[in-house]
C-alpha cells in the first residue's frame, strides 16, 4: 500500500517537473500570442536554439552551466528581436494562413541550419555536479535536477506575474494589448514594446529548451517534433493567459506521466484524448479571456 502510494507520489513529482518544463517552453508563446496575435510556429525552434547555444558555451567555450544558460537566453533574445524587426513585421497585417506559412518556413530554415552545424544526433546539456543525484524526503526519492526545474519554473512564473502586474513595462504592455491606438496616443512606443515582448518570449523559450534538454533532448527536428505539445499547452490554457498556461502545462504533464505509467498500452494517446475533451468542453481554453 505504502509502496503504491510512494510510486504515485514520485510519479506525481515527475509529472509536475515535466509540466513545469512545458510551462517554461510554452509561456513565451502565450505571451507573444496574447500580445501580438501572431501564430508563431517557430517558437519551439527558439527553444532549440537556446539549448544548442547553451550546449556550445559549455562544450566549446568551457563556460559553467549556470553562466551558459543565461548567456544562451540573452543570445536567443537578440536573435528573436532581429527576426521580429525583419521577418515578423511582414506578416503582422496578413491573415492567419500567411503567418502560419511564414513561421513554418522559418522553422524549416532554422532546422536546416542546426542540422548543418550540429549534426543529427540527440544531445543534452551536461548537468553540473550540483544538479546530479537524488535526495530523499521521507519515503520519497527525488532527483535534484527535477526539484531545481520545478523551483526555476516557479520563479519564472512569479517573476512574469510581478513583471506584468507591477512594473511600468508591464503596464505599458497591458495598455498596448488592450487598446493599441489609445496606447500610442498616450505616448507609448507600441512597436518597441512588442519587440521587447517578443524577445522576452524567445528568451523564455531558450531557457526552457536549455533547462529541459535532459527531458526533451536537443536534435535538429526539435522545433517540429515538440511544436504540437507547445501549441496544445497554449490552446488548452487559453490564448494569452499566463495562469491558464501554468494550469494546462501542469495538468498535461501529470496526465502524460501518469498515463504512460498506468496505461502503457495507450501511450501518448491519453494526453491527446484529454486535450480533445478539454477543448470540447471549453473551446477557449481553461482560462478564457
Amino acid at each position: 500500500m505504502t509502496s503504491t502510494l510512494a510510486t504515485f507520489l514520485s510519479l506525481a513529482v515527475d509529472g509536475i517537473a515535466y509540466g513545469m518544463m512545458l510551462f517554461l517552453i510554452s509561456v513565451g508563446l502565450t505571451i507573444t500570442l496574447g500580445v501580438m496575435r501572431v501564430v508563431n510556429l517557430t517558437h519551439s525552434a527558439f527553444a532549440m536554439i537556446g539549448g544548442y547555444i547553451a550546449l556550445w558555451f559549455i562544450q566549446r567555450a568551457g563556460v559553467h552551466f549556470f553562466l551558459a544558460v543565461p548567456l544562451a537566453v540573452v543570445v536567443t533574445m537578440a536573435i528573436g528581436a532581429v527576426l521580429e524587426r525583419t521577418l515578423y513585421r511582414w506578416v503582422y497585417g496578413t491573415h492567419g494562413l500567411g503567418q502560419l506559412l511564414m513561421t513554418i518556413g522559418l522553422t524549416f530554415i532554422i532546422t536546416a541550419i542546426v542540422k548543418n552545424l550540429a549534426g543529427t544526433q540527440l544531445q543534452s546539456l551536461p548537468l553540473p555536479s550540483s544538479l546530479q543525484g537524488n535526495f530523499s524526503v521521507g519515503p520519497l526519492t527525488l532527483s535534484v535536477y527535477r526539484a531545481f526545474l520545478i523551483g526555476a519554473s516557479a520563479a519564472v512564473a512569479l517573476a512574469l506575474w510581478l513583471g506584468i502586474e507591477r512594473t511600468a513595462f508591464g503596464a505599458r504592455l497591458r495598455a498596448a494589448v488592450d487598446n493599441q491606438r489609445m496606447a500610442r496616443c498616450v505616448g507609448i512606443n507600441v512597436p518597441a514594446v512588442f519587440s521587447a515582448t517578443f524577445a522576452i518570449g524567445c528568451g523564455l523559450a531558450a531557457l526552457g529548451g536549455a533547462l529541459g534538454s535532459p527531458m526533451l533532448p536537443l536534435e535538429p527536428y526539435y522545433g517540429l517534433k515538440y511544436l504540437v505539445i507547445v501549441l496544445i499547452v497554449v490552446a488548452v490554457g487559453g490564448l494569452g493567459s499566463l495562469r491558464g498556461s501554468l494550469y494546462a502545462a501542469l495538468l498535461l504533464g501529470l496526465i502524460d506521466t501518469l498515463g504512460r505509467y498506468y496505461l502503457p498500452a495507450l501511450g501518448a494517446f491519453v494526453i491527446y484524448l484529454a486535450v480533445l475533451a478539454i477543448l470540447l468542453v471549453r473551446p477557449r481554453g481553461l482560462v478564457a479571456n
Partner: protein
Amino acid sequence: MTTPSLNSSVARAFSRHRYNLLDLVLLGAAVATFFLADLYLALATAVLIMIVFALSLDIAQGYGGIETLGHAAFFGTGAYAAGLYAMHVSPEPISGLFVGMAAAAVVGLLSGLAVLRTAGLTQIMLTLVCATLLLELANVAKPLTMGDDGLTGYSVAPVLGLFQFDIEGRTAYWYALAVLVLVYAFCKFLVSSPLGLTAQGVRENPTRMALLGVPVRRRLLTLYAISAALGGAAGALSAQVNNIVGLDSLGFTMSANVLVMLALGGTGRLYGAFLGAIVFMLLADRAAALDPTNWLAALGVLLIVVVRFAPTGLSGCLARWTSREGTQ
C-alpha cells in the same frame, strides 16, 4: 446602373463552372506525361494523388475559410480504411475507394462538430489535435494497423475487373488520373453550386451570412465533410497504388506539406492545387534526392518569399499576368 455589374458578377460566378482551354491543356499534359514520363511514372502518380489531396484542402481552406493544420487526418483515414478493406473484406479497388471516402467523411463530420465551433488559432489547434489523436490511435492499434511497420500484405484486384495493377505503374497512373478528373469535375461543380457560393460568403463574412438566414455552421460542416471525403479519396488512392499505408500518412508533415503546396499554388482557386502540387512534388523529388537538408532550407525561403511577395500564390500571379495581357 447596378444591373450590368450584378450580371457580370453572376456571369463570373457561373463562368467558373465552364471548362476552358486550360482544362484541356492540363488533361493533354497528363496524357502526354504517361508517354514521356517512363521511369518517373510512379512520381507522376504521386503528383496526381497529391493534386487530389490539395483540391480537398482547397475546398475547406480556400473556399470555406476553415483554417486547418490537420488535413492529414482525412488522407490517413482514407488510406487505412482502403488498406484494411482490401485486406479483410474485398480487394476490389473502386468499392475500396468509396470505403476510404466514407470513413474520412465520418471523421470529417465528427471532428467538424468540434472544429467548426471555433475560429482562428483554436481552430488550427483543434484540427492539429484531431490529426495527432488519430495518429496516436493508429500507433496504439498495432494489431490492426501494424504501427510503425506500416500496413502491408494486401493486394488490390484489377480495376473494373479488367485492368491489372502492373509493376511499371501504368494502370495506377490511369486509375489515379481518372479519379483526379472526376474529383476535379466535382470540385468545379461544387464551388459554383449554392453550397459552394454560400461557403465563400461565410468565408468573407460569417456574421452577415448568418443575418441573411444561412445556417452557417451546418453549411460549413457539409463542406468540411465533403472536403474530408475527397481527402479520403486521395488517401485511398495512395493505399491502393502503393500497397502500403504508413503512419506518416496521418502525420504533421503530411498536413504541413499539403498546406505548403496549396499556398504555393494559391488558395481559393482550383488551379492552385494543380500548380502547387506539381511544383512542390517535382522540386521535392529532385532536391530531396540531391540534398535533403538544404532542400528544407530552400523550402523555408520559398515559403517566406511566397508569403511576402505573392500571397495569392503562383496561380494568382498567373491570373494577374493573363488579365493584364488581356486588357492591353
